[in-house]
Structure formats: C-alpha cells, structure tokens
C-alpha cells in the first residue's frame, strides 16, 4: 500500500470520479459523501507520501512497472510533496465548505458537478506528481477541460463566454508548452524529466533547446495568468459558480507556478535557466509590471471576486518575480508563497462564497453591516485580508519577507518597491471593504443597548462556517510554521548551486 502511494494519489480520485457518476444514477445525495471520501483518501495519501519523502528522501515510482524512459515515472521530492498536500487539502476543505452553495445552484446536476470537481483535482495532482514532460501536458488538459466545464456552469449570461475565452487562451498556452516539449523530444529523444535533464547539458548552446525553453515559459506564463497574459483570468474566475472559483482560484495558478519552478530547475539546469538564457532580469521586470498592474486593476473594480482575482494576478507576479531573482531567498519565497497564497486565496474566496450564499450580492457595496450580521464569516475574511496585506503572524507576511530579502540581496529594488506598494494597495483594498461592512448603514451611535431591528445576526450555516474558520486559523498556523516549512521541505528542493 505504502509503496504505491504515488500512484494512489492519482488513481483514487480518477476512479472515484467515475464512481460518482455511477452513484448519481442511483441517487444524487450519494455524490457529496462519495466525493468527500475520495478527497479524504487523496489527502491521506498525500500526507503519507510527504511523510515518506521526509523519511526516505526523493520517491521515484514507475507506473505499471515500466522503467523510464519507456514508462511514465512519478517523482516526489519535498517540494511537490508539499504542493500535493496543499492541493488535496484545499480541494477537500472547499468541498466541505461549499456544500450548501452547490446544492442550491446544482441540486439537479450533483453528479456531473462532483465528477468534474474530482477529475479537476485528479488533473492537478497528476501535474504535480508526474516526472514525465508529455504526461504533464495530458494532465494539464484534464485539469483544463474539467476547469472549463466547471466555470461554464456559472452565471448563464456570462460564464459560458468567460469559459470559452478561457478555453482558447488555455489551449494556446498548453499548445505552446507542447511545442516546447516537442522540440526537447527532437533533440534529446526522451520525455522523462530526469532523462532530459541528464542529456541537456551536452546540448548547451543549441538554438533548438533555447527555443524549446522559450515556448515552455510562454505557455506556462499564459496558463498561470502572468501579466500581461492574464486577460482570461478575471472573467473566468468572477463569473464561475462560487464553489468553483474557490476551488480553481487557489489552485490553478499556484500549480502552474510550481510547474514553472519544476521545469526551470530540474529539467533545465539552473545555470542554463538563470545564466545562459539571460531572461531573468526581464522576467523580474515583467513581475514588477504584474504586481503593479494587478494591484491597480484591483483598485478599479467593486466586484468582490473580480477584485480578489486581480489580487491573484499580482500574487502571481510575486511568485514569478521571486523565482527569477535566482537566489535562495527568492526561490524559497516563491515556493512558500505557493502554499501561503493557496491558503489565503481559499480563505477569502470561501468567505466571498459565504457572503454570496447569504446576501446574494457580489459587489463590495453589498457587504454593508456584515460585521454585525455575519461576524464570524467577516472575521475569517478579515484574517484572510490581513494575510494578503502581509501582517504577521499570518502566513502572507513570511513569504513576503523571503521575497523582499531575495529582492534586496539580488539588488532588484524595483521588485522590492513593487511588493511594498502592493502591500499598501492591499491594505486600501481590504479596508475599503471593512469600512463598508463596519460603517454602513449609518446607525445612531447613542442608541439603545443591543442591535437595532433588521441588523440581527444572520450567520451562514455551520457546515460552511467551520471550514472557513479553520482555513482562517490555518493562515496563522502556517505563519508560525513557515520557518519549519522552509528549512525542512523547501530548502531541500532547491538545487545546491543556488545561494
């Protein structure tokens, strides 16, 4: 059982997804418990796998016993072990926390919804765990196609178009990546990442390899919504059903950032990535543009989910910029931020879903008086906001700490400035919402003791609140353990040559 953990992580949800479809034909009510059981299984396997990696070092697994370069190999090191746990945990928490929303919106389509949900998670888990460049493309498509479908189930006026746009852009991105992999296959004759890595140094200076590199980066940047290739993202996330945006928003971009780190560090050599190609400085500048652009665009909208999505655009800039700083602090910051940003994005999107469930509005102006009406949800949202602003001891502060020290060490002061600017903009963004929820509607302040009529407490159901509050508490816990996470997991995944 333990030996097959890397495989189980993908097989459990893959088979489970079909079981959900079958179960739906019996009774729709069966889908949710089944999906919860499947994702719990995936989470348990992911945690077990991470424990094994910590105990034994890198775990290699050959599907069906076929040895590379013929078969598909899975490879788990401390970093992707960690990302696997994040993906599984976010998927499970979101599943538990959005049940009332899903039943409200898709009461008649529970089977398809949960099947797609679990398949999407399967795709992401596979992307993270695989050690095969082409297999990664296949899984990318699985995640993408299920993602389109999930997004398309949203607001009938807007969501299908947003989904279509996402299909076009996503397909272009995946195709670019595939082209890159094709070129690499042409020169190396293999698709296994470790094999490629072993053969590439001999081809130093090959224009084909350089072209492949450029295609891979371009494809991944498009898939992760790296500014200015982010245009598909705001519509896709803001028109998606609430239960879907709180799944996709924390995971999709972060997994793509992980893939970038993986390809750039383990398929291509760090010396090649940061040295020969000479794109580092340009990528950091693009990241500065992403951070500034995302922050400013976020200021310009009053649609809650759209605002949060623009914050993601800026956050992707954090991670990409941190990685391309090319030093240990920067890459640690980028990797740590994958975890932290997934958690805090989940927190604010879950809260947005909760507000939507209770009040039905999606604009920040609909949140009036919510500190009184929904104090618990609002408090959890506030913790998420503070983490995104970067207030210690929430986790957002610590990744920012690494990113800024990386920027200072690399002498990239524009990046440092952009990070500080974005923190200040986030402060404005969230306190704009807190103000609305705290000050409006205007109330007589010398009134009678107790709440005036019409502002009595109306909290969301407990099954939504518990996952939300746990996520908010998790942000503080992640912050306190960030030192451990870097020294015990992330440090080991960064090649020794990088200082």
């Amino acid at each position, binding site marked *: 059982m333990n030996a097959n953990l890397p495989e189980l992580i993908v097989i459990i949800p893959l088979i489970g997804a079909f079981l959900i479809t079958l179960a739906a034909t019996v009774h729709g009510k069966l889908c949710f418990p089944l999906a919860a059981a499947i994702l719990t299984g995936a989470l348990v396997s992911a945690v077990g796998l991470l424990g094994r990696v910590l105990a034994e070092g890198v775990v290699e697994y050959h599907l069906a016993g076929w040895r590379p370069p013929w078969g598909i190999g899975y490879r788990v090191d401390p970093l992707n072990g960690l990302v696997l746990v994040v993906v599984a945990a976010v998927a499970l928490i979101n599943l538990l926390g959005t049940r009332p929303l899903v039943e409200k919106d898709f009461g008649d389509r529970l089977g398809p919804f949960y099947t797609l949900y679990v398949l999407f998670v399967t795709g992401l888990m596979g992307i993270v765990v695989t050690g095969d460049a082409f297999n990664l493309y296949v899984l990318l498509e699985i995640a993408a196609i299920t993602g389109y479908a999930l997004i398309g189930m949203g607001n009938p006026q807007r969501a299908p178009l947003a989904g279509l746009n996402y299909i076009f852009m996503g397909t272009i991105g995946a195709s670019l990546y595939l082209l890159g992999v094709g070129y690499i296959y042409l020169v190396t004759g293999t698709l296994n990442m470790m094999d490629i890595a072993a053969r590439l140094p001999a081809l130093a200076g090959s224009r084909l390899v350089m072209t492949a590199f450029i295609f891979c980066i371009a494809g991944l940047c498009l898939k992760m919504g790296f500014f200015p290739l982010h245009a598909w993202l705001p519509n896709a996330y803001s028109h998606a059903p609430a239960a879907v945006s709180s799944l996709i928003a924390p995971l999709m971009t972060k997994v793509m950032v992980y893939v970038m780190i993986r390809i750039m560090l383990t398929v291509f050599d760090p010396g090649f990535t940061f040295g020969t190609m000479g794109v580092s400085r340009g990528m950091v500048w693009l990241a500065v543009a992403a951070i500034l652009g995302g922050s400013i665009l976020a200021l310009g909208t009053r649609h809650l989910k759209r605002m949060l999505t623009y914050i993601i655009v800026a956050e992707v800039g954090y991670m990409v910029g941190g990685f391309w700083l090319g030093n240990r602090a920067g890459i640690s910051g980028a990797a740590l931020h994958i975890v932290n940003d997934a958690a805090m994005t989940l927190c604010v999107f879950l809260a947005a879903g909760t507000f939507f469930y209770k009040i039905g509005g999606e604009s920040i102006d609909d949140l009036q008086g919510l500190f009184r009406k929904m104090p618990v949800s609002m408090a959890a949202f506030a913790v998420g906001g503070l983490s995104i602003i970067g207030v210690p001891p929430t986790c957002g502060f610590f990744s920012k700490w690494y990113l800024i020290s990386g920027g200072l060490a690399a002498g990239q002061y524009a990046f440092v400035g952009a990070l500080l600017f974005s923190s200040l903009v986030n402060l404005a963004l969230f306190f704009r919402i807190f103000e609305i929820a705290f000050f409006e509607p205007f109330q007589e302040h010398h009134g009678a003791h107790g709440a005036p009529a019409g502002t009595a407490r109306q909290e969301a159901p407990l099954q939504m609140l518990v996952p939300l509050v746990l996520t908010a508490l998790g942000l503080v816990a992640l912050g306190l353990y960030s*030192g451990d996470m870097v020294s015990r997991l992330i440090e080991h995944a960064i090649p020794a040559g990088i200082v």
Partner: protein
Amino acid sequence: MYDIVSVKPLVAVLISLLAVPAIVASRSPNLREAWTFLAAALKFAVVASMLPAVWRGAEIGCTVARVLPGVEIAFRVDAFGLMFALVASFLWIVTSAYSIGYMRGLNEHGQTRYFSFFAVSLSATVGVAFSANLFTLYLFYEMLSLATYPLVTHHQDQEARSSGRKYLLYTVGSSIGLVLPAMLVIYLLTGTLDFASRGILAGTTGSRTLVGVLLFMFVFGFAKAAVMPLHSWLPAAMVAPTPVSALLHAVAVVKVGVFSIVRTITGIFGTDVLSSLSLGEPVLYTAAVTILAGSFVALSQDNLKRMLAFSTIAQLSYIILGAALLTPKGVTGGMAHIAMHAFGKITLFFCAGAIFVATGKKNISEMAGIGRRMPVTMTAFFLGALSIIGMPPCGGFLSKWYLVQGSLQAGQMPILVVLLFSSLLNAAYFMPIVYRAFFCPPEQAAFAERLGEAPLFCVAPLVITALISVGLLFYPQPFFRLAMMAAQKVIGM
C-alpha cells in the same frame, strides 16, 4: 540566552487576549466588566511579579516559535520594557473603571466590542514592551494598529470613518512602507534582529548615509510616535471615546511608538555607533522641531482633546530627544518621561472626558467657571498640567530635570533652550484654562448651579492618577530606577 527562562512574559501578553472570549460571551454588562477587571488585575500582577528579578538586574525571557532563520517570536523582559509594561498594565485597571463611568454615562453602543478590542490592544502593548527582537516588536506593533482601529472609529459615523482611514494610512502605511524594508536591510546586514544592549550594527560595514537613512526610516516609520510631519493622525484619532484617547493616545499606542524608536536606537543601532557617526543630532533637531511646533499648535486649539493631542505630540518628542542626546542623563530622562508623562496626560484626558460626561462641553471657551462646579476634576486637571509643564510638585519635573542635565552633558545649548521654552509654552496653554475655571467672574461663568461632578467611576480614576502624578516626585520608584538601569545598560554611566 536568558538569565531566567520563564513563560511569565508570554502569560502577561496573553492574559488580556484570553479574556476576549469571556468578554464576548458574557450575558450581562456587569459580568463583562468583571472579566475586564479580572484580566487587568491578573495582567498587572504578572507584570509586577517580574519586578524583583529585574530589579536585581536579571532579564526574564522565553522563545515561542522560530519563524525565520535567526529570527524568533521571543520575549525578553529588561528594565526598560518592564517600566513601560508596568505603566501600561497599571493604567489599564484605572482606565477600565473610567471606561465604565464614561461609556455607561453616555449610554454608548457596542460596548462589548469596545471592551474586547481594548483588551487586545493591551496584549499588543505589553507584547511590544517585552519583545526580544525587532521582528516580535513589529508583530505586536501591527497588531496594536489594527486592534485600535475599531476603537478609534467607535462612533461609526462619517467623521470616525475618515479619521480611521487617516489613522491606518499613517500608522500601518508607514510601518509597511518604512519599518519593514529597514528591518529587512538590518537583517541582511547582520543576520539577526535581536536587541542587544549596545546595538547590533557595531562592526558592520554601513556607511553613514546608509545608517542615517535606516535610522530615519525607523524614526518616521514608527508613526505612532507622531514625529512631525507624520503626526496628524493623532488629533484625528481624538474622535474616539475619551477613555481610548486617554489610555491609548496618551499612553499605550503613542508610547509604543516612542518605545519602539528608543528601543531601535539603543538596541539595534547602539548609542556608540550613533555617536561615532554623529547621527544623534539630526534626530535631536527633528524632535526639537516637533516639540516647538506641537506646542505652538496646541496654543491655538479650542477643542480640549485636540489641544491635549498636540501637547502629546510635543511631549512624545521629549522622549525621542532624550534618547537622541546619547548621554546617560538624557537617555534616563527620556525613558523616565514615558512614565511621568503617562500619569500626567492620562489625568488630563480623564478630566476632559469627565467634563464631557457631566456637561457635554468639548471646547475650552465654554469651560469658564467650571472649577466651581467640578472642583475635584479641575484640581486634578491642574496637577496633571503641572506635571506636563514639568513643575514641582509633580513627577514631570524629574524627567525634565534629567533631560536638561542630559542636554548640558551633551553640550547642546540650543536643545536646552528648546526644553525651557517649551515648558513656557506648556504653561501658556494650560494655565489659562485652570485660571478661567476657578477665577472667572461669576457673571461670565457658563454653568448653572445644579451641575456637579461626573459619576464616581469617572472621578475616582482621575483623582488616583493625579495623586500618583504628585507622588512620583517624592517617590519616583520603581519607574525611575528602572529607567536608570536601562540607561546604564545601553550607554553606561
């Protein structure tokens, strides 16, 4: 690494935080306030219980979590931190009593929220006082900014909203924009953020420009200290209920600002480094400008609380000035002024609040003859004012005396002149109020006969703090001795 390893500092920080659930869950207001009193008394007891060890020169500490390489969330109680924590936790007890009188007297809304965030603010204040390193200090500093926001904006009206915005922009904006990057640069230069008695920058290769820029990033970045030009949040924050202004904007929040600056000057930069680079003077003159300008503006205010706010702005810079003198007496005077000013200024704010509760008046021009209606309050006001001016028989005299001696030690004659002139200005804005309160002709008095003192819960606290202000001249311990010990540690004698 600590003389005595103990969780007492952590307990002292957490007590008030743990009281919050109890405060929120309380069914009756009396029970709720009982929790506040219990937490306040326990907190003070725990803080005070560390006095004997610190008095002997020991340092008490503990490490909570290691969050970054070489950076921990850790507490270390030394003389300076303990002095500040004693002041803050003692005054919380007094202020809680006053809050009951004030909030119930005015039938304010949202009292549960008010008492909850008050407790959180005190946790953060003591956290700053006990921080063993700059990171922990920053953590609690930010926590304090956020926890006081709902208190500043308590009235939830348009004025509170815009003041709250200003408050956040200044305090959080400057800490993210200035303190955070400066802290990171220090970390990259030295690999640590732990406060050391003679600083951690000694021996690093920083040019005068770099050190100077970093120094000012802290002096302005800790905007809670209200050094001009980053001062205008403080008058704006006066929209808060008066107990908040009294404890937070005369004692806890603003003193956290100056405490952080003094801590950074002594524990991070080190007095030796600053003297050898002669970087004390720029800070000295920045503080001097704030002292004079703050006093001048205070002269022109009619709203009593706003006047007190500008007076506070000026007085806070005394403390920074003391540290920037970089002489033993100067540092002692500056540190001791944290305690001396606290008791005087909180008395004045309590008086302002008591007048508002009893009469509804906020403006000085409407307070003629009030001394006959509220003799106790106005006598306390007189004593508090004397302490701020720095005249016997009040404790403020002592710290000013040391500051004057410190500027002589440093050979800074202009600063001596500033200090003396500022005392004159203080007298010029306080004494007319007292004079008109007691000696204005009866026909000009603005009050009818039937008005009396504010409720007992309002009056008793201000009597207590006024008496302590007087007592501090004759028996300034433990505060003065702690300040001297702290100064001795950071600069020698």
